């Protein structure tokens, strides 16, 4: 029921895998949006004196993204340790 034949290629499309791939993709998009939002909060002052990123902001963003992904990694490791089946991050 969750398989169908692709007429052009005669290959089956596993709809369940497609749904899982879509959810994984959505998770990465959600993660990206959260990083954009959190690092904007942490690194960009709300007084907009110039439209460009200055040196300090740029450096802050780089570290912020790296640290966010590190937290992501340790949470992932712990969740996998607990549940035995976390996302493969």
């Amino acid at each position, binding site marked *: 029921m969750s398989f169908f034949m692709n007429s052009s290629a005669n290959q089956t499309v596993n709809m369940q895998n497609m*749904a899982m791939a879509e959810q994984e993709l959505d*998770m990465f998009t*959600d993660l990206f949006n959260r990083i954009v939002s959190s690092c904007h*909060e942490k690194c960009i002052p709300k007084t907009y004196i110039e439209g460009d990123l200055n040196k300090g902001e740029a450096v802050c963003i780089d570290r912020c993204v790296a*640290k966010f992904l590190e937290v992501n990694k340790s949470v992932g490791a*712990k969740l996998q340790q607990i549940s035995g089946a976390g996302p493969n991050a």
Partner: protein
Amino acid sequence: MDFTQFNDAERKHLQRMMEQKQMSDFFKMYNTIVDRCFNDCINDFTSKAISSKEASESCVSKCMDKFMKHAERVNQRYAEVGAEMMGGPK
């Protein structure tokens, strides 16, 4: 939700749907924990070397543990109080 209103085929349909949502709910909760613990624990971006790495890792680790216990407890109460309040005995 009152499942007695549905026939077998519909219940099967709903169950498949709920199984699929489970994974996306898990992903969402996972990102929520990361977001929350990052924002509560990581506030120093002056050095590239995570100078206080141990300290921040320890904060992240405790934050994560606490968040999960928190969500677990909310889940228990939500089930109890919610059942009492919304459904009530039929």
